[in-house]
């Protein structure tokens, strides 16, 4: 049997539905007249499993999994990883340092733009954004290690 995209997609929905069912197991279902806190999650999870199974059953109409282009996955993963690091550093380092590092890493590291162009872009954009928010609009941004 050829593995198709909808096999995976439907499988993910079924798994997600089962996870919701498991997580909402303790919540009371109640009655139809007075639904409890668990009724809606269970209803939604049940429908999600049902539609996930339908997607799997009708997966023959979808494209084979092997035909999906995955050439961009490593690049996408790199961007997500860089963004995740930036989020983790946002509070300890603050807006200015984190965003300069984020922009520089994305433009120079991920996009291989020239070093000086990437550095000037990162510093310039962050400085302008900081001026706009902190000076013109008087809106405090995350201060971090620099204290501003």
């Amino acid at each position, binding site marked *: 049997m050829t593995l198709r*995209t*909808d096999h*995976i*997609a439907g499988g*993910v929905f079924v798994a997600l539905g089962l996870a919701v069912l498991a997580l909402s197991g303790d919540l009371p279902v109640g*009655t*139809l*007249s*007075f*639904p409890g806190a668990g009724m*809606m999650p269970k209803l*939604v999870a049940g429908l999600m499993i049902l539609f996930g199974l339908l997607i799997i059953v009708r997966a023959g109409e*979808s*494209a084979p999994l092997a035909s*999906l*282009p995955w*050439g*961009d*996955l490593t*690049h*996408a993963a790199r*961007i*997500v990883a860089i*963004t*995740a690091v*930036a*989020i983790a550093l*946002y*509070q300890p380092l603050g*807006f200015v340092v984190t*965003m300069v590092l*984020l*922009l520089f890493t*994305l*433009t120079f590291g*991920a*996009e*291989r*733009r*020239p070093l000086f162009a990437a550095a000037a*872009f990162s510093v310039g*954009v*962050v400085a302008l*954004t900081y001026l706009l*928010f902190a000076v013109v*609009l*008087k*809106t405090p*941004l*995350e201060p971090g290690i620099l204290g501003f």
Partner: protein
Amino acid sequence: MGTVESLLLGFSVALQPDVLWYAFLGCLVGTIVGVLPGIGPLSGISILLPATFGLDTTKSVVMLAGIYYGSQYGGSTTSILMRIPGEAASVMTCIDGYAMAQKGRAGAALCIAAVGSWIAGTFGVIMLTLIAPPLATFALRFGPPEYTALLDARPGVPRLHVVDLAAAHLADGVLRASARHHRHRQHDRTLPVFLRHPRARRRHRHRTGRGRPVRPGRDPVDAGCEHGPQCHRAEAAPAPAQPAGMARVGHADRARFASRLPGRAHPGSAHIISSFLSYALERRLSKHPEQFGKGAVAGVAGPESANNAASTGAFVPMLALGLPTGPITAVLIAALMIHGVPPGPTLVNEHPNIFWGFVASMYVGNLMLLALNLPLVGIFVNVLRIPYAYLYPLVIMFCIVGVYEVNHSIVDVWIMLIMGVVGYGLRKFGLDPAPLVLGLVIAPTFEMSLRQSLIMSNGNWTIFVQRPIAAVLIAVCALLLALAALSVIRARKDWRSKLAEAESGEGAKARI
């Protein structure tokens, strides 16, 4: 004092130079907030609220309201140019606006959005001036059963061709950046080996002029342009000719009316739902519904007009009754209360300068926004020229800052990143993220109003057909579902489509 006298009083306040300045500032910031993906009107108003503490009440509320309705104008820009809604109400504009941009009509789409927004915004203010009290009374009739029935009627909407939504901002950025990177590599492979190094490519460009960044039509990769040749046409796209512009008035009219009901009656996401309803209405009434999703002008004019009219409509219960219809109007009420002015019925009588000054400033503000947005269309179209390698890091930065600044919660930012990854997966597997996001928006309100309705009726489900408005909405829901089912059955029974399928199959076999 009659309406005209009151309005004249309002204009005497709104046309004072300093009030005009703050109205302009609000409109400008609102446009920027709308243009920047990741920063919505709520975060824009919230982060600027402290900046208004030093101002008097009229100026502060005029500026903050300017941010709100200015963001409705600006939100269309990134939707049309980059398929990234600047704020949630611009989601529907992505569909046909982006398709128009791909066809090289980005300038026309932006003009239509600006003019439609102005017509609808001004209409909204006229309504606010003239019929605010009866409409506010109508909104008061909407209880939990009516909300439940209204949200029930939503299944008709996801059937529409909906594109990626605000929650998929990051996914979009990641996907586009990745797709671009992939094409970049493919592009490299199409060049001779000695030209693959960036420096060598620059030398090659210098000699041949090929791939200059300002010529996206000739070299989409180096220009960072998503749309290839279309961008080149987009930059040269003239503003819509007068007849086309006039034809759009009809769409704006329908959109305004489509926006009135939910604008008054639906709290929280009135401007968002209005744009969805308007799109659905335009598609239903269009003689060429097949053009929707492929660059239909009505698909831009309708939703854009609707969200502007609805955002103005949200001020009616806020000003007349002191009721927030959503988080944005709640912040505006907070701004009034911080200045010691209680919103509600007493506002009109006890603070006519503030009430009518605010109303009059919206007439002026809408004109300012039109004057601001039309000349800026050319500048906004130039956004397409910015290499995507520089553009998407900006989007990611503003997404992080925008999400963080709402609650100062890093958890929210992590959720955004996870949703971005989910959005990437959904698009990879060809699943439309729109219904998912629609469910996320609607589900909490639906569940709450359903529970409230059942408590009101002591568990009796007939409450949804006993109340006239709810019954009508349930009937509309049933009708929409029936129409949807009918169109599916008809499509299956249509002998012409079967014949076309058979012919295409035979044609393919013959080619083989």
